[in-house]
């Protein structure tokens, strides 16, 4: 039986470099800042006519999506291509596991193809962490969303968005509104905001969608949106899934919008220069009014373009962390052989 270790530490090399990217939890401020700085530098390359950099040339990246997601998968694909990697898209949701193959079988098959990196999305919390512990050393795992647990690249692109629009994350008051319970994005954002020095993190929604344990992650709970938005610098709206009504978590989209939908009137309670974010895809008229989504304070489309840069950054960093670790281990084993001789 594999004994699983602390999920926050599995992603680091012995000397604290990123080798997988599984969660924003437990990563240092320096490391998160390094991701943002590198992503920033990639944004400028994205504006050039020739967008490619050769950091992952000769490497094979496999997009392993056990859950369908066109958008996240496309941005990872673009990010890998702009790093000059070869990319393979596997739509597992419709193939192997539905034929009874276990996750481990799938993994062993893919390893046999000598891949260097798996970008994993899976409906089970902890799936990326599980795969990171099972894969051959040297293969990097990037978490593209696991259950309700973490979606660290989304959280980091949100941090980048805030930093680029607000100059810094320090001292910001950030409200996250909506379905916190089911949101891997919210959990990853809270950890990252906390580490990067946000002044206050608020989560806003009804008790059916906001677990009281969020307070232990350092967030302040508001059931009343007007109170929750008062004086905030950043408003992050979360997508509301249709299933929430049939699961008896909410009465209707209409009542939800009335209480927690972001309208111009509610946004006026935030600071005048507050920005509005959304991980997408947005439900107009359900969690956000069109006027706000398309308004001056909305930075939703900027988030999408920063997404590629952030994914390039973590892919490059994890690959280089893996390479450094492999080299260190090779040196170590050579030294051992030397001693024996």
């Amino acid at each position, binding site marked *: *039986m594999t004994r699983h270790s602390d999920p926050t530490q599995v992603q680091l090399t012995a000397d604290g470099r990123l080798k997988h990217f599984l969660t924003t939890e437990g990563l240092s401020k320096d490391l998160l800042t390094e991701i943002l700085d590198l992503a920033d530098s990639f944004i400028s390359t994205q504006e050039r006519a020739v967008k490619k950099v050769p950091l992952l040339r000769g490497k094979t990246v496999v997009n392993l999506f056990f859950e369908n997601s066109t958008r996240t998968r496309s941005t990872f694909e673009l990010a890998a291509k702009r790093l000059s990697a070869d990319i393979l898209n596997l739509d597992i949701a419709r193939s192997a596991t539905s034929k009874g193959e*276990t996750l481990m079988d799938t993994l062993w098959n893919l390893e046999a193809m000598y891949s260097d990196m798996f970008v994993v999305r899976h409906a089970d919390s*902890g799936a990326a962490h599980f795969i990171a512990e*099972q894969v051959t050393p040297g293969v990097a795992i990037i978490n593209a969303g696991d259950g309700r647990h973490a979606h660290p690249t989304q959280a980091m692109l949100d941090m980048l968005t805030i930093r680029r629009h607000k100059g810094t994350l320090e001292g910001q008051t950030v409200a996250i509104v909506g379905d916190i319970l089911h949101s891997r994005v919210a*959990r990853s954002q809270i950890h990252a905001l906390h580490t990067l020095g946000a002044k206050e993190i608020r989560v806003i929604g009804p008790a059916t969608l906001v677990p009281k344990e969020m307070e232990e*992650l350092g967030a302040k709970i508001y059931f009343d949106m007007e109170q929750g938005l008062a004086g905030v610098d950043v408003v992050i709206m979360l997508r509301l899934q249709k299933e929430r009504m049939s699961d008896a978590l909410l009465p209707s989209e209409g009542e939800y919008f009335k209480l927690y939908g972001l309208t111009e009137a509610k946004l006026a309670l935030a600071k005048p220069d507050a920005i509005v974010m959304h991980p997408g895809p947005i439900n107009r008229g359900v969690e956000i009014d069109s006027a706000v989504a398309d308004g001056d304070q909305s930075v939703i489309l900027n988030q999408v373009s920063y997404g590629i840069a952030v994914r390039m950054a973590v892919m490059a960093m994890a690959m280089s962390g893996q390479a450094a670790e492999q080299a260190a281990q090779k040196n170590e084993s050579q030294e051992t052989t030397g001693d024996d001789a």
Partner: protein
Amino acid sequence: MSTFTITRAQLMDPSQGLNELSDIIIEDGVISKISKAGSTEPSSHQFDAQNTLLLPGLIDLSCHINSIVSETRAAARGGVSLLCTQPNSKPIVDTPADVSSIQQASDQANNSQILPLGALTQGLEGDQLANMVSLKQAGCIALSNARAPIKNALVLRRIMEYAKTHDILIMLTAEDHDLSANGKMHEGPTANRLGLAGIAEVAETTALAQQILLVELTGCRVHFSQISCARSVEMIKAAQDKGLPISADVAIANLLYSDCDVNGFDSTFHVQPPLRSEQDRKALLAGINDGILAICSNHQARDIAAKKAPFAAAEPGMSTLDSWLSMMLTLVAKGELELNSMINACSILPAKILGLEAGLKEQQQANLVIVDQAADVCFGADDLASIGKNNPVLGEPLKGKVCLTLSYGCEVFRA
């Protein structure tokens, strides 16, 4: 006549207030004489138990077993004399024929002997009563629905009334399956951090409240298997104080671990009932130290593939039989569990619940275990007789080494 003598054993039996250095003579599987150490003539077939404890054999109120030979051997290694097997095996134990095939296999295996639990409902489906009297006549010591849901309160009421009519002991798990639906671990800060769907305390306590009220109505004798919450201990105690014919046990996993142990997504800790908070763990230990609760192994061997998956997708269950007594003695060594309470909880109380002879007395079948309480032990995967290596203590230092186990007078394990 075969005679077996155990000499110089520190015999402990809290049911009789015994704690003395003793010699025991066993003739044809029956304890014929218990006397002060040194008073027995040397015999050819003798076991010197110096510096060890001799306890009444462990009686496991709940384990889940498919492979009888390997798992009863694991039980013998763990100091278990008798074990109640849940009916959710393959096949489900809901007919007398299923019962006799288990009994035969248990006889043949010649390890710790099985006391089979029969199903309360046909196919464990929760709606039609199994042939409860026939199952009892076939040798089921009690009937249980494992953790499968009983359709509704009406069916449960009927089960209790019918069981009461025929003096059948029933074992129930307290779980509201609507409230626990899709849950993978205890609802609390760890579940929230890991993004795993939680099983709230009320999933257990609302069901328990309903079941206790139905016991009050029907007068049926009910044993609650594997309670996991502090609140449940209070409820059990209050009901017992009221004079209701109920008892309860706790799985060893819930005494050793809490929801914090799930932190690394380790699927070994994916169990039912879930590991609760540290406060619950403490309350369960207090319930045992107060003599209210029994301890069961709730052993469930899983193959490697069943556990080698992300936490939520891994099958629940923990393999505990091989290490059960060592796990408990480790809690004793840590000062969390009193030795007398431990013996009461894993042998005396289970015997009383099942209507068996409790403790160690002359003219009783020899069900006993000799254990070196102070010995350090560490289990590796290859040390386990169980086919399930999903045991969280592998590689961990524990206290207490089982030296000898007798089941119905037969030597089933000797270290």
